């Protein structure tokens, strides 16, 4: 398959400011920084897949040219969280001078939501001590997870969810390059399913394209339904039918298969409760129980016990009895 050997999420990642879709105001300000050859520390906040990482990569390219990788350190706080990373990796990188004719290096810290408070506290000093040689760009989904002292040291950029026009534009660029045929209805469903997450759009598109270059709504939903199996509603229905043992088995399977934490699963259960065939009063009752279970998971030690307790209370309160 032509051009099929690369992941599209990389292939179609914007290389220049002009490639970036949406976020016009943010792009303008960043362009200004590049022009002045200086930037403050940055804090990018916004939902997943709108282009936060892509944009900082563009900035790095614009600043450092071809050698951008030498002056750019990317860390994922959700993989390398904890204070040691801040104390070792980040400090080591920040300590040395930038290579080539540039005033500073950039450290990009992705998914800072999951950075522990201690690590953030440690980061705060580091950011000040190395301003001569290094600029930080932090990215997160919610700025409220970032401690105030860090927020006050950064220029904050709030990324909004991409609107339908921007998504359509991106889909069309991919379609033109890859020789796909995609109709209006399919674009609409892609937009709905992805919630404006471009990474998801491109992955679904590439998955569809491996099956068929003519992409329609049906194909998209086939791919998505494999990716988003109705497993949670399945075991909830088992619980509603009063079969605790079967529901429990299914629940453990799901957790292990998808590597879900207890809190992850409670979140999904709580969403799916709205789709259960019970009356509204029961739904509210169940959601209250979810809240209690989530609290207990946070407070307790064995999340599976807590989930089973939730399940047992669903079985007890199931309308079939």
């Amino acid at each position, binding site marked *: 398959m032509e051009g099929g050997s690369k992941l599209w999420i990389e292939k179609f990642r914007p290389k220049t400011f002009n490639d970036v879709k949406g976020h016009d105001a943010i792009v303008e300000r960043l362009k200004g920084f590049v022009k002045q050859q200086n930037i403050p520390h940055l804090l990018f906040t916004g939902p997943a897949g709108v282009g936060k990482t892509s944009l900082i990569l563009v900035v790095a390219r614009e600043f450092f040219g071809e050698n951008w990788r030498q002056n750019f350190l990317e860390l994922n706080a959700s993989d390398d969280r904890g204070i040691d990373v801040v104390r070792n990796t980040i400090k080591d990188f920040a300590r040395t001078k930038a290579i080539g004719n540039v005033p500073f290096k950039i450290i990009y810290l992705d998914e800072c939501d999951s950075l522990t408070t201690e690590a953030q506290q440690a980061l705060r000093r580091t950011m000040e001590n190395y301003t001569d040689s290094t600029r930080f760009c932090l990215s997160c989904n919610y700025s409220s997870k970032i401690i105030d002292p860090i927020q006050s040291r950064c220029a904050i950029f709030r990324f909004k969810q991409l609107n339908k026009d921007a998504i359509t534009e991106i889909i069309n660029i991919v379609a033109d390059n890859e020789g796909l045929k995609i109709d209006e209805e399919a674009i609409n469903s892609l937009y709905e399913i992805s919630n404006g997450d471009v990474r998801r759009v491109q992955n679904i598109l590439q998955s569809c394209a491996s099956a068929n270059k003519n992409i329609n709504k049906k194909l998209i939903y086939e791919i998505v339904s494999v990716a988003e199996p109705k497993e949670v509603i399945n075991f909830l229905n088992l619980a509603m039918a009063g079969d605790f043992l079967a529901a429990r088995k299914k629940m453990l399977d799901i957790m292990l298969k998808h590597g879900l934490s207890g809190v992850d699963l409670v979140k999904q259960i709580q969403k799916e409760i709205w789709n259960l065939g019970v009356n509204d009063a029961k739904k509210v009752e169940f959601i209250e129980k979810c809240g209690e279970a989530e609290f207990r998971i946070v407070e*307790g030690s064995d999340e599976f016990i807590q989930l089973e307790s939730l399940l047992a209370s669903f079985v007890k309160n199931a309308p079939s009895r």
Partner: protein
Amino acid sequence: MLLVDKYKPKTLKEVYGQDYATSEFKKAVLNKNHVFLHGSNGNGKTSSVYALARDMGYEIFELNASDYRNKEEIKNILGSVIKQRSLFNTNKLILIDEIDGLSGSKDRGGLQEIPALLDESIYPIVLIANDPWNSKFNGIRKKCKLIEFKKLENLAIVNILKNICLKEGIKYGEIDLKILAAKVKGDLRAAINDLEILARDGQLSNVNLLEPRQTKEDILLLLKLILKGKNLALINEAMLNTDITLDELTLWLDENMPKEYSNDELEKAYHYLAKSDVFKGRIIKRQYWRFLTYQNTLMGCGVASSKKELSKKFVSYKRSERILSIWISNMRKSKRNAVISTFLPNLHMSNKKFVNELSYMKNIFMNKKVLESLDIKDEESKYLLT
């Protein structure tokens, strides 16, 4: 009623195998001497005091480890008792049990207060401890008559157990009682408790169950107590004496509860088990070990009391396989992550995000060319696809 309570000696004569000690004890009390009873656990020290009091119509004032026993408390509680005449002019006996336990921050000064009490009291004071030769008792020993309660012989224990079995209509094998007696090392109370646990349904079940290395059997016994019965006192006792860890018990209960309970009962039982786990979490976070009581009680008594009626159905208990499945899945995960980590740096996203995205990318990774370009080998790709 627990067997230990039922067969507690009512009179001094019934205190088994301590004839010399009890007669000395009685003499001393009649002479209004203070007494220091000592000896190992469960051979009748405290029982003798109560038996004697009953025999001679004495009133008992007891201060044991469950009370605060610092200087002030002891003064407040006993200070007046030792001087006042009793309401009906009866004699009094003052019992301070478990004085080995009198130390630490909460009982500060308590021990120093005792010699003064001994001097002032017009009533005999009985002190009880395991080891009277501890140096902290130096000021106390010389003011009291020391009476040792000897460790009970195995044979004596066997005889007592036999007697109880006969009265309770429990069928027993001689050898089983001997093993049981040997195991408790002279502790009669422990022996009777063990007997109670083993003697379900009028039959002494396999005594080897009590051997600590047979934890599998041990846990089945405990599970039965909790899931089939409602004798909370017994469950508490058993949970105190067992070598099984609470974590292990949690797993067993978790696996087997749904087989015994259903609906309301199951919900309630899980509620208690979950609450018990919350207390465990709190212990871990705050290192506040007093919560252990709640973890313990909610797990044992909470689960047991969730049933409406005693269950008679036959259930074979199984060990939970949850830990194993989690382990297997973790192995898979770590292999998958190893594969991912080879190309992840080029994708500018975290492992977590990529794994999230992976289910949308299955079709992409079935494409050989994509795998090649990312340098993923065929046998590695299966970890991405499952």
